């Protein structure tokens, strides 16, 4: 009984508003991949009937006020305001212009206090006060003066607050849903792939990684992740994938054509979290969504030479791992965009990190080919042996590619020569190439164990 009394006393300390502590609050958060989330906040509101002001605290500070909608039975919305005029000492003084405040002078020697009423005349670069018939500058002498305000002005708040003016029908408590879009919440996928060298198989775990920098905590929220970023007409302030660096090397070798059992919304895949969760401000949260074992994977090498690329020293080929996302001999799922980290067991059997690669939203049944880094022992030196001017705009370029392998087993390197657009031809080559596109010729070169191989080719080009 005394405890209950005390609790009541404590609650009186709190300003009355709709805060997250309310037990009747139900949050649902839908997060898109491009730093955007839809928040649906269901709370019970008390309608008095007639015109009334409702305040919603604990809303995202970054919310788009134009995306707010409040729905409840039998109420009409007059206007809604998103106040982000923040309560600071300077604002407090500014708003007190022309009003009366209390100044308390403290005698620095004795500590004795002298109280006076003062009117704030101006706050331009300093506070000018009118005390009785005198005009003074506040704390001009550097001596201690306390300033006491009677109240906090109406729309100054510690945190951005949404306030809605409504006209209520019948009085009573009823559920209302507040929904809005906000940046600051985002998610992506993080994959852990463990490659088994002995039987060329990978185990892949997929985790969704949620980050919240929107400034508030979403308590006990039902969370839905959408693998896709809707186009926003007014993209300002909500950059989509602003960190994405254009990737030179395509990772998606073969787009898939399979569909799985995952829930969809339009063309977006949905990843609902199984349980309600609290997304704290500044938290990074990971929830598992994929765990597959023993998927066949291929380990290879790739070297891409730009047009007329020539080097004095040999360059490392890229280490490539490729695998399928299909149901047959694959991951059997569509993969939301994210980063795939590769691990390999060392001689002692401990997994070691060997590199990572970003993937885009990948449909099921695709073939992915991911570069994890440079191969220490497999190198290629591309050399322009000769450039011959054949005619007005006709050139012959003799290229030589020297491949070396310091590994005790033979390797196959996919050698690519870029920049062959236009009517360029390969007039002679030491090994048959395939033309992947007008732009790129490809040779599949086998380099013997601890050995070398070389490919030569003559290109007839107009540049």
């Amino acid at each position, binding site marked *: 009984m005394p405890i209950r009394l005390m*609790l009541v006393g*404590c609650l009186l*300390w709190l300003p009355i508003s709709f805060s997250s502590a309310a037990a009747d609050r139900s949050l649902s958060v839908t997060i898109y991949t491009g730093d955007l989330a839809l928040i649906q906040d269901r709370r019970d509101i008390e309608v008095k009937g007639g015109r009334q002001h409702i305040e919603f605290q604990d809303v995202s500070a970054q919310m788009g006020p134009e995306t707010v909608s409040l729905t409840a039975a039998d109420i009409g919305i007059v206007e809604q305001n998103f106040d982000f005029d*923040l*309560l*600071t*000492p300077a604002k407090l*003084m*500014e708003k007190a212009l022309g009003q009366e405040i209390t100044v*308390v002078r403290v005698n620095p020697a004795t*500590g004795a206090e002298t109280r006076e009423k003062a009117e704030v005349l101006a706050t331009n*670069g*300093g506070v000018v006060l009118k005390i009785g018939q005198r005009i003074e*500058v506040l*704390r*001009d002498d*550097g001596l*201690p003066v306390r*300033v*006491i305000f009677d109240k*906090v002005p109406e729309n100054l*708040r*510690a945190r951005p607050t949404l306030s809605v003016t409504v006209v209520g029908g019948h009085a009573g408590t009823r559920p209302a849903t507040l929904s809005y879009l906000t940046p600051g919440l985002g998610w992506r996928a993080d994959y*852990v792939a463990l*490659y088994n060298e002995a039987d060329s198989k990978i185990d892949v775990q997929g985790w969704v990684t949620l*980050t*919240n920098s929107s400034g508030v905590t979403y308590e006990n929220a039902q969370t839905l992740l959408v693998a896709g970023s809707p186009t926003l007409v007014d993209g300002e302030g909500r950059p989509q994938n602003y*960190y994405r660096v254009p990737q030179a090397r395509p990772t998606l070798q073969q787009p898939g054509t399979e569909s799985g059992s995952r829930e969809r919304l339009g063309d977006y895949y949905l990843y609902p*979290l199984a349980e309600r969760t609290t997304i704290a401000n*500044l*938290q*990074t*949260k*990971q*929830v*598992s969504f994929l765990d597959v074992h023993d998927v066949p994977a291929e380990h290879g090498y790739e070297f891409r030479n730009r047009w007329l690329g*020539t080097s*004095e020293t040999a360059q490392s080929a890229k*280490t490539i791992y490729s695998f399928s996302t299909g149901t047959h001999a694959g991951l059997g799922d569509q993969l939301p965009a994210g980063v795939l*980290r590769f691990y390999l067991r*060392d*001689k002692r059997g*401990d*997994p070691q*990190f*060997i*590199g*990572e*690669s970003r993937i885009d939203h990948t449909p099921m049944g695709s073939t992915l080919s991911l570069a994890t*880094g*440079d*191969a*220490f*022992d*497999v190198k290629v*030196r591309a050399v322009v*042996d*000769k450039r011959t001017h054949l005619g007005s705009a006709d050139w012959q370029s003799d290229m030589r590619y020297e491949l*070396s392998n*310091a590994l005790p087993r033979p390797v196959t390197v996919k050698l690519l020569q870029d920049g062959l657009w236009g009517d360029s031809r390969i007039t002679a080559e030491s090994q048959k190439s395939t033309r992947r596109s007008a732009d790129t010729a490809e040779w599949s070169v086998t380099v013997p164990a601890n050995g070398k191989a070389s490919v030569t080719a003559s290109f007839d080009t107009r540049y």
Partner: protein
Amino acid sequence: MRARRSMRLGGSLECALLWALALAPATAADILATSPTDLSVTVYRAPERGSGSIVLDALGGFALISETRTVHLPAGTSRLRFEGVADGIEPASVIVTGLPDGIIEKNREGALLSPSSLLGAALDKPVTLLRTDKKTGKLSRVAGTIRSDAGGGVVFATAEGIEALRCSGLAETFSFAGVTDLAATPTLSVQVRSAEPVTRTVTLSYLARGFDWAADYRATVSADGKTLDLGGWVTLANGNGVGFPAAHAQMVAGRVNRESGEVEPLDLGGAILAQCWPQGTTSDRAAILQMGLDSLTAGAGDFEMAKTARMAAPMALQAITAAAGKKVAQEQLGDLKLYRVPDRTTMASRQSKQVRLLDRTGIPVTLIYGADLAAGETRAPAAASRLLRTMNSRSNHLGLPLPSGHIAVFADRAGESLLLNESGVRDLAVDEELEINLGDAPDVQVTAAQVNHVNRVDISNARATQVRFELRLRLPEGGRVVHADRSMGTKSGRPIFRLTLPAHETVTLRYQTQPIGG
């Protein structure tokens, strides 16, 4: 009046206590994993560093850390916390293995305990304002509520009215009652469900920034200049505030792909900036802020000191330990090279450590002088460059992968070692050519001129011995050498003249190119 105030005070303390209880996480059992019983740290080089040396204050590499810990889980859902993980942890890379049934979710809290976050957490909650008389030291306590900490200023309410913190010129600070659930360091936690109480050994692995390693070679050229002794150190550095005692340490050589850009939100916190209204002056805000700082209490002064200490901390990365003796063992890791430090070692916080990489003697080398010229270039006498060339092969007493790094070349002079030059080495596989740059050689000068479309190059040798010289030409598009009075070869698709310069003589080379002048 006095009696009333003390009653309020008592009430606020009890309230604070209740609040503290209410603040405690309402989730299931909070379990703390034991300290790591086994540690493994694998350090990766900064991917874009090339062969430059590491900067101990800004380590651009990273590490894979694996910790073995024991956990006792009760039946039901628990929140398992891991403390003492590296500050540079990348939360998205965390892997936890060995837990029963299922991990519901993994969390990394980014809100850390700091003066400013403490203030933010106390918003709208009761606090006690402490005002100390600077003259008498008399302390007065006033119960209040923080109304705002927005924009760097603090507004609070007391029974008397609304006031702003530290705007009065008095020594003011808040005393926060109760406990906070904010952590000092980024804390990693896992929500896990177990059907029955279990004790498990779990492995926590994650990538963390703030590590790097580099190879530093020291080559000593023999008196006759025909052989070289090559020694190498591996320098491992841990720039984190967390140490790793008795850890298995590994390094990985070779360039590893990293996708950068996404940084998980983290609030490192800060001091309480008690900004005020324009006060007592007509000058601008900066001065006002300065005045505000001047009026900080002794407690706030500590924040400043703490900040200075934090800034100074990187300079303290000096503890260099040389673990001499055994060399690192190398093994293949996919297409990378893994080096294992033979014994368990302690990677203390903000420490760099050196271990022996290799020691090879009697490596045959060839000293070559050289110059690079564009075809048709006219050049006033300039010093040739000098390099040592050898093959990274078993027959040359090498034949092992050499991770990129710095190489310093020394020569003996009357029992003393003198530095000749320092240069970089790239990642070198077995059976690749190793070229060590020795800098300029003023004794060998190269002069080039063009007369009547004939290019003439004079190379003078002021040394008492004959030397080998290589002149490499750069030709324009479609250009070729049509005539030369010395035999010409090609290297990397470029014409090269390999010459021998007799002692104290000048050798002249003439060549013509097509198109003329090119």
